């Protein structure tokens, strides 16, 4: 019987082509948009974690309350001991120290006169540490546009856009003008070892990256750091695990009234990420539900039209001794077969689109010249294994649901009425 049905599906384009096209389009859109949006959102979360929040972050309570101002006067002290303690207590995370600093970058010319100045977003990381993983974490080797990674003290990486704006080349000197942890003025010169482009407008416009030891010297932050970031060994954020770590750490300081006591935050609690993460979690399922509803309605109508066209056939089959139930079941079997064909086509096209967008992405840097959002300027899709079924199963389900609804018409009509359709 199945062979007989397949023959009809292949031969009768009205029975198969339209539903297959409808399902293919629906599945294609579901997969490509899910993959794209998941890639974009995942990238944004990942970028945010790598550059700003970590999966966990330790700050002083006072620093946490004003962290947007990079208040290094409220930074953690005694961080060597604290970091060692974190590494011992929570070995599933890699703990790294960072200092953020704001200030002015001055670019002197050959005569020592200023040829340009601009505000900087400074980031001091463990550049020279072999174990920190910071160079790889921030994808610095692949982000370097020219020059190299700093190899010794007093060398700095500078944002490529920033460098071009100040007309700076590799080997040029820049001077940082800012305030120390104690509030006094500081000036420090660095040699540009390379320029970087992270693909994030917020970083690329004024980035200055130096080693944390240079920052400590420059800002009088001996054994201090604004933040200690923790990254899970798996490289993926797991909220439940992060929450347990956070609770365990904060419980230790729960009874302290010291505003400089360290406090831990997980990614979800920073930068208003909670809603964003919830949105990401619910997005795929929301997409699938909407898809199934829309497709079911469309396929219901397609099925109704097809069913009306086939009342004559149903009458013949009843006359040949097929029961209504059997006709209904064969309709659903046909729907499964057509659904599988359409979903296979849609899934193939959708995955091809996702893989293309994963490699090439869509460059929106032109739209982000004024933005301060921590998001990539090339938006890429992301292939995940659930894309293999996220459109496929709903595609088949929608086709079956549509035919189930339209097929009810067979039961609603009297056998003799269906048979009467034969009396043309």
């Amino acid at each position: 019987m199945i062979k007989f049905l397949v023959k009809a599906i292949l031969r009768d384009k009205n029975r198969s082509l339209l539903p297959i096209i409808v399902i293919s389009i629906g599945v294609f859109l579901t997969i490509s948009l899910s993959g794209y949006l998941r890639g974009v959102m995942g990238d944004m979360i990942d970028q945010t974690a790598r550059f700003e929040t970590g999966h966990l972050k330790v700050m002083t309570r006072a620093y946490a309350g004003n962290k947007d101002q990079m208040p290094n006067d409220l930074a953690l002290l005694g961080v060597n001991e604290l970091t060692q303690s974190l590494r011992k207590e929570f070995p599933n995370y890699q703990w790294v120290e960072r200092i953020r600093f704001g200030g002015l970058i001055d670019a002197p010319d050959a005569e020592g006169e200023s040829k340009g100045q601009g505000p900087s977003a400074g980031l001091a990381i463990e550049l020279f540490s072999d174990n920190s993983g910071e160079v790889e974490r921030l994808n610095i080797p692949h982000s370097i546009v020219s020059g190299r990674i700093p190899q010794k003290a007093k060398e700095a990486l500078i944002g490529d856009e920033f460098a071009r704006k100040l007309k700076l080349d590799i080997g040029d000197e820049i001077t940082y003008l800012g305030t120390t942890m104690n509030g006094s003025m500081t000036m420090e010169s660095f040699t540009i070892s390379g320029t970087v482009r992270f693909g994030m407008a917020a970083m690329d416009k004024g980035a200055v990256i130096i080693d944390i030891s240079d920052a400590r010297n420059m800002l009088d932050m001996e054994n201090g750091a604004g933040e200690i970031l923790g990254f899970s060994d798996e490289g993926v954020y797991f909220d439940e695990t992060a929450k347990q770590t956070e609770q365990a750490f904060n419980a230790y300081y729960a009874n302290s009234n010291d505003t400089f006591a360290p406090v831990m935050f997980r990614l979800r609690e920073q930068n208003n990420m909670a809603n964003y993460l919830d949105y990401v979690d619910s997005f795929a399922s929301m997409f699938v539900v909407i898809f199934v509803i829309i497709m079911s309605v469309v396929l219901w109508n397609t099925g109704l039209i097809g069913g009306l066209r086939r009342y004559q056939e149903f009458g013949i089959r009843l006359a040949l001794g097929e029961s209504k139930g059997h006709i209904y079941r064969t309709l659903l079997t046909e729907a499964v077969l057509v659904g599988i064909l359409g979903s296979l086509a849609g899934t193939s096209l959708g995955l091809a689109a996702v893989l293309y967008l994963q490699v090439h992405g869509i460059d929106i840097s032109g739209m982000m010249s004024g933005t301060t959002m921590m998001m990539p300027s090339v938006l890429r899709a992301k292939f995940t294994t659930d894309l293999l079924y996220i459109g496929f199963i709903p595609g088949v389900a929608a086709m079956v649901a549509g035919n189930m609804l339209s097929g009810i018409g067979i039961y609603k009509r009297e056998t003799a009425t269906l048979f009467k359709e034969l009396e043309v």
Partner: protein
Amino acid sequence: MSHENIISIEHVSKRFPVGDGEFTALSDITIYFRRGEFAGVVGPSGSGKTTLLNIIGSLDTPTEGTAVVMGRNISNLSHKESARLRNMHLGFIFQVYNLLPVYTVFENVEFALILQHKSAAERKKAVMEALEWVGMAGMARKKPSKISGGEGQRVAIARAMVKRPDLVLADEPTANLDAKNAHAIIQTMKNLNRELHTTFLFSTHDEKVMSYLDRMVHLEDGKVAKDEFIKTKTTKP
């Protein structure tokens, strides 16, 4: 030829709701058909011919009375039992030959046997035999759109006969055929009636068909006006 009753219609009435009232299609009909008969229900349009055939074909049930076909009371059959009765014992031939357009001639005839879960080898043998009965074996691979009306009706007869039914119900089978084809079709059915002892029951008002019938039940306004047994004719004079 057995003389048992293959169809027993006793005091059957059929009424259909029309607006606030009812339309009586059949009114207290009692009639019997024996196995092997080549009979027809004749009468003008609206006389109740199709309604009677629908009841005999277990496509409808009587409002009153008893209709027993192949020993089964039509009123008591479930949808599934009705389908099984049609599948195993009844064959239908329609005014329009109603072949499934997506299937070939062979597959159209084969379909009834697939419903009976016959093996591929059994099906092939039976289908080719049925197509030979009606002279269509050479067109087995053709689609219905590629054959003429007369050929299509021959295929429809093969489809009805392939499962060797006890009873074939033919509703105006020659209505869309020219005289030559109509005579050929009726002659084919008459031959099958003689050779296979299949009972044929026609609904018709076509004189050409009537000329072949051994028995004519005249219906008027849902009642049996005359039950006429005619001397058997095997060929058209």
